[in-house]
């Protein structure tokens, strides 16, 4: 609360309009995909036929926003931090997409509701285990959570790309960050953990929320555990290793589908 | 309901804007903007026709699909070229970039 009332300091040569507009846009972008995420059988705001592509399209806009914001700060440190953050997020988009591809192939539809429905008998984490791992790691990199948060590493570059933010602006960015966290967690739940399916002594949305919170917890936990990874190593891992593992899972999925194993599993 | 002509007019307008930028601007990057605008105008055209023909031809959407991918690649290569040209000539004014040497 206090943050709202702190004075908004805008750096001397910074670009006023962008500085104020981008954080707003960020929050908007982070909130929007929630409209397509189903909390329960009929608990979704908009069941787009291309639900998952919508979510990915929105997430691909984050790096662009960050770049604009970093440039608008007009000083070295946030800019460099912004660049590194940009590289990191862009690098991990593709493993994310590919691991989601496996899920889409299993479910046979791009719609998030269909994806959850297809998991009625068995959660996708079982046949698509590799994808789950890849996706999980990619999410942590996208969210800049430890052990991947070099762009915000405190002793290194002051506070990374939001160095110059203060007061309400910082609060907005913080908000966007946490909304992204929950967005990604709920995405994991929808894609891999069966969405809202659960024994019916609890209503469906409650199951969904429980699973999402568990995922979020697992994302936050490594914060105190692992050491940081250097950015260039990080980017390399994203582009090469994770990509290959993701592709391997896609092949595996193709095998599973074509040999009819998935039919046996009831998907 | 919106008629097909409205889409074609919008597409033509975008084409005009793109052509204007292409012929008039000196900044190489703005010329790239113009190219992208033109490609988008064409995409819009294709997409409009796929919906308004009877029966709807999905082939139009396929074309747009390829067009988006191809245009993105072309933008990437074009930008790389601009970078190289800038390094060699210290300028992105296309009037000064007219020597093939170097």
């Amino acid at each position, binding site marked *: 609360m206090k943050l709202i009332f702190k004075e908004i300091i805008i750096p001397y040569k910074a670009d006023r309009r962008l500085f104020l507009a981008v954080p707003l846009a960020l929050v908007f972008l982070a909130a929007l995909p929630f409209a397509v995420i189903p909390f329960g059988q009929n608990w979704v705001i908009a069941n*787009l*036929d291309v639900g998952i592509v*919508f979510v*990915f*399209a929105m997430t*691909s*806009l984050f*790096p*662009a926003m960050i*770049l*604009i914001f970093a440039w608008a700060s007009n000083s070295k440190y946030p800019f460099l931090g912004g660049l590194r953050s940009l590289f990191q997020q*862009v690098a991990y988009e593709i493993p994310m997409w590919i691991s989601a591809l496996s899920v889409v192939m299993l479910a046979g539809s*791009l719609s998030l509701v269909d994806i959850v429905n297809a998991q009625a008998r068995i959660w996708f984490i079982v046949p698509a285990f590799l994808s789950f791992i890849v996706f999980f790691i990619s999410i942590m990199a996208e969210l800049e959570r430890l052990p991947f948060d070099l762009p915000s590493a405190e002793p290194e570059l002051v506070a990374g790309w939001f160095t110059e933010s203060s007061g309400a602006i910082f609060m907005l960015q913080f908000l966007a960050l946490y909304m992204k966290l929950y967005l990604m967690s709920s995405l994991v739940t929808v894609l891999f953990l069966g969405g809202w399916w659960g024994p019916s002594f609890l209503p469906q949305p409650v199951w969904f929320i429980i699973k999402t919170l568990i995922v979020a917890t697992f994302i936050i936990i490594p914060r105190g555990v692992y050491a940081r990874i250097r950015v260039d190593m990080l980017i390399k891992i994203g582009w090469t290793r994770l990509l290959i593992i993701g592709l391997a899972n896609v092949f595996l999925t193709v095998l599973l589908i074509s040999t009819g194993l998935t039919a046996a599993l009831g998907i | *309901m*919106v008629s*097909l*002509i409205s889409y*074609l*007019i*919008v597409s*033509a307008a*975008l084409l*005009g*804007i793109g*052509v*204007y930028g292409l*012929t*008039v*601007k*000196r*900044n190489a*990057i*703005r010329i790239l*903007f*113009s190219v992208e*605008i033109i490609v988008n105008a064409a995409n819009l055209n294709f*997409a409009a026709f796929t*919906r*308004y*023909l*009877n*029966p*709807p031809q*999905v*082939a139009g*959407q396929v074309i*747009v699909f*390829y067009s*988006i*991918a191809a*245009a*993105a*690649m072309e933008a990437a*290569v074009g*930008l790389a070229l601009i970078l*190289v040209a*800038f390094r060699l000539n*210290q*300028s*992105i004014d296309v009037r000064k970039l007219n020597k093939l040497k170097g």
Partner: protein
Amino acid sequence: MVQLVVPSDLVFVLLAAVTIIAAILALQAKELIYGAIALGLSFIGIAGFFVFLDAPYLAMLQIAVYVGAVVVLILFTIMLVRREETEAIAELPERGQGAIGLWLAGLLAVAISGVAALAGPNLPSAPQPGELPVASLGLVIEAEYPVPLLILALLISAALLGALVLAKVEK
């Protein structure tokens, strides 16, 4: 599909206005970076059109590829190419050229619109009935146009390598 609450004509006009004005801004803005942002806005407008035209997959693709990647690349390049003179100062072309450009563009636009209007009676005035499910896109590609897909893949690899080679910094 998304339910529209406002009359569709109004939304169309709004989209058209945004797209066209953003395109003009992209070329005329004094700072290149504002121009790039305007271009992104224009792309989003086009994506809106795609949604209107029952092509939601294309719309998402447009946003993800164009706005998410191309605009980022453009922003990068702009930031790497910064010097005093590359700012869009005095973009005004010589008088003759500007007029020619305007005439050419205007002529093109009017000519095309004229042709379209002449064929007016034959053009359908409403979206034709018939379904365009998203899956049909993939099916059609697989059934009738598999070769271009492979060529596209090769092209992407070639473009990627080319761009990398070109942009390599000689130490």
